[in-house]
């Protein structure tokens, strides 16, 4: 049985001091309520079972075994990865400058990699991304005419300020024998929220400027959250999925930009996705690492039809 709580004389004296109109009965009611609440809390507290050191030690043993099973599993999964895989990397491209989660750094680098530039990737990364977004469609002969970061968009006469689309790419592809114009817009958010009606404004702009064009709208975030503004056409894409798409692109090892890409992907995994990269079998959270490796390797098998990673 719980102890009957007592209100101390000092407490009552102090209460009388700060609340002098005690004689109107309100104070007595308050004290009774307080006693009731205290008694309830006391009873609740006494009901909480105590946990002994012996019990804690026994749970600890179970957890240690569980951890070592995961570490062993992780070791097996890691053996499947090449030694220069971004998951094994220790250098984050933007982390070195404390810009690991800086949106503009990421979107500019992304635009650079998607474009046909000095990195030597050609349009392979952009093509891989388009094919991921258009899963199941039979598109071929993809041509890229333009890729830009922070592309300025005019919201029209009603609005004075202009917006900037993080990444814009356009070109043509062939589908069922017909040439189709396409436009890809990517809006990335890492820590920030969308601006007021930001994606709706882009929708309006696209309505005016991308007629007779197939528009792919992508909202790129760490957790794949849905945008708060904009039309339902915005597809969500996690940074983790973007990294998975890029790491599946094969044959880049001899290109000048290969190491840039590896450092970029390591940074995305570590700084944006918060994964314990470089992943090793003795990492502090082998559970998260196993989950991620499974998802990446399963994804490789699902999309490529074989288990080869980059």
């Amino acid at each position: 049985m719980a102890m009957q709580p007592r209100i101390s004389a000092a407490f009552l004296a102090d209460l009388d001091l700060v609340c002098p109109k005690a004689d109107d009965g309100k104070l007595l009611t308050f004290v009774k309520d307080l006693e009731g609440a205290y008694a309830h809390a006391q009873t609740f507290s006494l009901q909480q079972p105590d946990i002994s050191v012996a019990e804690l030690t026994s749970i600890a043993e179970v957890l240690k075994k569980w951890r070592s099973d995961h570490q062993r599993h992780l070791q097996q999964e890691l053996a499947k990865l090449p030694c220069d895989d971004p998951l094994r990397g220790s250098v984050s491209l933007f982390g070195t400058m404390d810009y690991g989660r800086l949106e503009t750094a990421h979107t500019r680098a992304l635009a650079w990699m998607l474009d046909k530039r000095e990195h030597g990737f050609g349009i392979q990364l952009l093509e891989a991304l388009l094919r991921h977004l258009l899963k199941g469609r039979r598109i071929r002969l993809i041509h890229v005419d333009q890729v830009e970061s922070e592309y300025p968009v005019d919201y029209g006469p009603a609005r004075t300020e202009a917006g900037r689309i993080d990444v814009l790419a356009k070109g043509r592809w062939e589908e069922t024998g017909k040439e189709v114009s396409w436009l890809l817009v990517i809006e990335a958010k890492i820590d920030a929220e969308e601006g007021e009606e930001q994606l709706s404004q882009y929708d309006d702009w696209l309505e005016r400027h991308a007629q007779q064009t197939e528009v792919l709208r992508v909202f790129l975030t760490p957790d794949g959250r849905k945008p708060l503004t904009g039309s339902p056409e915005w597809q969500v894409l996690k940074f983790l999925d973007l990294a998975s798409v890029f790491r599946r692109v094969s044959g880049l090892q001899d290109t000048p930009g290969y190491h840039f890409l590896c450092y970029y992907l390591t940074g995305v995994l570590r700084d944006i996705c918060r994964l314990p990269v470089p992943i090793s079998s003795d990492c502090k959270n082998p559970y998260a690492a196993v989950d991620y490796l499974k998802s990446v390797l399963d994804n490789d098998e699902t999309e490529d039809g074989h288990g080869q990673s980059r």
Partner: protein
Amino acid sequence: MANLGRCVLFYLKYAAEMERLYKPVEPKVEGLLNPDRVLKQIKLVGDTANREIAELLETCLRGIEEHFHAISDVQRIRNNLEKTWELRFKVGPKNATDRRFEIGVSILEDPAALIPWVWCPGGRRAEDEVMRILGRGVKSATFPGWDSGSVGLAEIKIPIPERLEEPVEADSLVGQVQQSFASFTARDVEAIAGIASNRGDA
């Protein structure tokens, strides 16, 4: 509060396991022996650890409040310490209560540590300014998930003993937390509050 509670120490020692088994609504128990029994125990350990953490932070509270009362206008931001593991205050100069920034203490799980901090609106630039004014601190990027504008004043490691029955003194941790705020002066408060009010001009 003389020693840290055993359940807190257990929680911090097995942070990855607690994250998987205690925090989610649907814990992932794949490969775990006797999952139902373990989950019951984990729930008890986690709930107790939360209460012990709240008690530790409440102990830190008094010294911080006293110090800042003397040099500033300080107001505690009420939150559920058992859930957030974070103590927060709004601070501003005594003569200008419209210019405010925040101070607080958070508990990191990995590595297990108490982090006294300052947060000021203005992002990374504000971090640089706060560090310049105080002549110390580490940027938010050091701590995963921290908002930009935050500066850690110290990393007070919580020693995790090999055997859980070994006591870990809480008073010295509390002392270190209070010490990290002790050198704050009214002039520092004035200067940091100035960053908060000037951020639009940068």
